[in-house]
């Protein structure tokens, strides 16, 4: 196993009285794609959101346990959450570019973090769009609204927007569920490129996608982490019958 970028220790999460995550322990490898799978309501998206404390925004959420990012607990009181979310960025189910130009979408983060120099910003925008394999498609329309792009392009704008602030971990919550097959393939290819430099955690309902893009897979059920390991093993020879039932579609 590669070194752990994130170590989750005895993590419990409650929405009021409801326990959504039950004593989850997991090590996320650096520069690896980890897929989180499981039926709706199993806690996988909740788990994903604990990794950059997006659940803090939901009322009545209580978390205990620890999540160590490079060995430091992100839930310790003095953690700077804004900085955390810069290091651990997120891509959502539906592309959500800001209603502004492609350029301004990408430059938004760096500007907030204090970059004002035009040349420096140009550089960041180009580099980020290239890294998101979008540059060739949008270089002629950088100053037009990002909302005019196709769904797949918008999703890559969102990824480029993340990359502009130089994150370390990318969280992807069903990043292709609103995209057509071609755009989906482009995002999947992009994930393969990005994993060389980033640690990626992806939630997906598409088993084949999990099998294609990830090296490690974690299966959640009713808030429990049931099985966790090498993706190939999980999809050809899972250990737990519940995993087998889920991935072969014989659930319930």
């Amino acid at each position, binding site marked *: 196993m590669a070194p752990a970028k994130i170590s989750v220790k005895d993590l419990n999460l409650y929405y009021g009285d409801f326990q959504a995550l039950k004593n989850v322990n997991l090590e996320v490898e650096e520069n690896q794609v980890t897929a989180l799978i499981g039926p709706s309501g199993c806690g996988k998206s909740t788990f994903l959101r604990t990794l950059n404390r997006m659940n803090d925004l939901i009322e009545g959420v209580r978390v205990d346990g620890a999540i160590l990012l490079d060995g430091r607990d992100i839930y310790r009181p003095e953690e700077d959450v804004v900085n955390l979310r810069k290091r651990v960025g997120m891509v959502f189910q539906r592309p959500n570019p800001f209603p502004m130009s492609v350029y301004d979408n990408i430059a938004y983060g760096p500007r907030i973090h204090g970059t004002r120099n035009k040349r420096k910003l140009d550089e960041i925008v180009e580099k980020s769009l290239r890294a998101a394999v979008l540059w060739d498609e949008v270089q002629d329309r950088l100053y037009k609204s990002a909302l005019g792009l196709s769904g797949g392009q918008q999703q890559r704008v969102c990824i480029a927007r993340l990359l502009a602030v130089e994150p370390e971990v990318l969280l992807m919550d069903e990043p292709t569920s609103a995209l057509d097959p071609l755009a989906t393939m482009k995002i999947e290819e992009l994930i393969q490129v990005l994993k060389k430099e980033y640690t990626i955690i992806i939630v997906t309902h598409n088993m084949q996608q999990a099998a294609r893009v990830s090296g490690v897979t974690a299966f959640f059920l009713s808030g429990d982490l049931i099985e966790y390991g090498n993706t190939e093993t999980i999809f050809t020879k899972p250990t737990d019958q519940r995993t087998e039932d889920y991935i072969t*579609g014989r659930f319930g």
Partner: protein
Amino acid sequence: MRTRTTFDQALSELKEDILRMGFYVEESISQAVESLAKQDVSLAQSVIDGDVLIDNQETLIEDKCMKLIATQQPLAKDLRRIAAGLMITTDLERMADLACDIAKITRRIADQPLIKPLIDIPRMAEIAQKMVKESLDAYVREDVQLAISMAKDDDLVDSLHNQVFRELLVYMMENPKNINQATALLFASRHLERIADHATNIGERIVYLVTGERKELN
């Protein structure tokens, strides 16, 4: 709630198709060896003519497997089941080809008296057939133990083959006129030995299907 009724139906249909092919192959081996021992050319011919049925069955099974892979996105045991099905089909088809080759040997040496009554070759055939039958039983019942014990018989077939080889060597040394027929019979023996190897392969596929482990059986 059963969530994949159609898929499950297709899988059990696939199993029946493979079994049917297995029965054809068993029949083909048994008739080929009988034709050899009795020098029955018309029986040999019917084995050779029947091979096309087995080939068609193989194509049918392959097409069904491809379709299931393309449309059902099988994973875990489903995936192993289909992969094992494809491989078992290939082994069965090879066995049928070998049975055909034995039938062709019958045809070739039918006009000459046998240099000796055939004893070991029919015994090999008996064991090989039993292996084929047991491998199919093991497949149907997903019985790993039976698959493993079946494959042990491969040793018997191998040692009979060696015995046949030594015996035919003596006949060839005694009289060079025997060489033609002895070589033909040696090939028949070799084909039976290969049939038993394919049965062993099927055993290995079954172990993989059930456990996900690859295990060398013999």
